[in-house]
């Protein structure tokens, strides 16, 4: 099992969700995040005082998948989140030792 995590532009979330559903994903966790990569931040001016806002809003999507689905899910996120501009985000994959479904107590692939 793998955990696929994507940090993407907030306005791409709906398309990414649709793409993941199309790839057969039945559940995900979405949270608000902030950060920056190569695009750095932007400036804001409040009553003449200029602030550099270097952490910009992002959305983090986490999906647990079986080993064979990893590529399809990763491609789905990348395909749907991509605008081609700096700041589109990243997707990464890490191995998962075990997963348990709280309702039933099932473990492993059956819990996905």
């Amino acid at each position, binding site marked *: 099992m793998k955990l696929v995590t994507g940090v993407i532009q907030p306005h791409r979330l709906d398309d990414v969700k649709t793409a993941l559903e199309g790839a057969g994903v039945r559940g995900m966790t979405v949270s608000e995040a902030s950060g920056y990569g190569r695009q750095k931040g932007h400036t*804001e*001016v*409040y*009553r*003449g*005082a*200029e*602030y550099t806002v270097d952490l910009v809003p992002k959305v983090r999507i986490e999906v647990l998948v079986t080993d064979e689905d990893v590529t399809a899910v990763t491609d789905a996120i990348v395909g749907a989140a991509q605008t081609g501009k700096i700041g589109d985000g990243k997707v990464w994959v890490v191995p998962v030792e075990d997963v348990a479904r709280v309702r039933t107590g099932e473990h492993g692939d059956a819990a996905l």
Partner: protein
Amino acid sequence: MEFELDTGNTAWLITASSLVLLMTPGLAFFYGGMVRGKSVLNMMMMSFASIGVAGLIWVVYGYGLAFGPDLGGFIGNPAGLIGLTVDNAASPTTAMGIPALVFAGFQATFAIITVALISGAIADRVKFGTWIVFSAIWVTVVYAPLAHWVWGGGMFGADGWLASALSLPIDFAGGTVVHINAGAAALALALVIGKRKGFGTEAMRPHNLPFVMLGAGLLWFGWFGFNAGSELAADGTAGRAWVNTLVATAVAMLAWMTTEKFRDGSATSLGAASGVVAGLVAITPAAGTVDSWGAIVIGLVAGVLCSLAVGLKYKFGYDDSLDVVGVHLVGGLVGTILIGFFATNGRYDSFYFEGSLNGLFYGGGVTQLLTQIVAALVAVVYSFVLTYIIGLALKATLGWRVSEEAEVSGIDLAVHGETAYENSGSTITEVR
């Protein structure tokens, strides 16, 4: 003078008083949105506390100090007015047919907002108890005398020295008493109390701009009571004040946004809200005394000058946290002094006060301008010096600052034992 009730005037003044009282909670939102999320409750509480302290004092003896029989042009004698045992036949509003209690209530709301205005200069860092004590002393020693000078038959009134020496100073709704007074006091306290930790180096951007916009809207709404109510009658001059409060404010908002657009690249919501307040401040002393063109120029000058003046604190290194000096002192001076150019006595439903003259641009010469400058300077000096002394006395006794740790972790939790936005991870451990 025999008292004869005028129900129209009375109904309007009771309504206007309620509008003015709403300005202080509005100010709480205006200021509260501008501070950091960890100190929003303290900022709002400083305004609400002003309603508590100044409201009580006004009823017990404050109104008497400001509007009691004149003692030497400086202060009123409160002896016969303690607890508002007022006489309808011996009130500044007898001629308008407004009961004395209605006028006393209207004036209470002015004392309340003036104290609250000062709090913006000392955001995020002062002990709540010291603020309460300061409010009580300040409204007694600084606000009540100024209100007496200008509106209570004191030295800026028709029988005062300035009226004999030059002409009667015009302060329709509180340019000197409220805004110059609060702005000069704010500067004095900001200097006595010192900067917030991290001022000028750490980010202190407004945590909730929609609150700031909400507050500016409530202030504008309430300000119609402040300015049009100050006519103390439901008549055409009240309408003049109302229209000027609309148009000067509209122009000041546009002027602030335009200045920002050219200087910083964007017209911001904070700039719009700030422009609204700058315009309201500047038109206050002039509301019933200038025509629409005068109001438009006053709004324009206030919007541009105040938007530039808010940067002074960084140049001079004082932490007037929410720009009470840049908006209220500067805006109050703009309005008070421009009356000297634009006053139009008795024309277009404007106010006529025997002893005051037309402005320089309306054929009255420079006398009224000089009068306005003298009145403004006296108000600045009195308020600044007295507030500085009160501030130092409190610094030496109760102390002003919360601990550095409390300031860094957030004054809301340290001083009020609550937080505005931390909603998760709590369990109930005791009930009383």
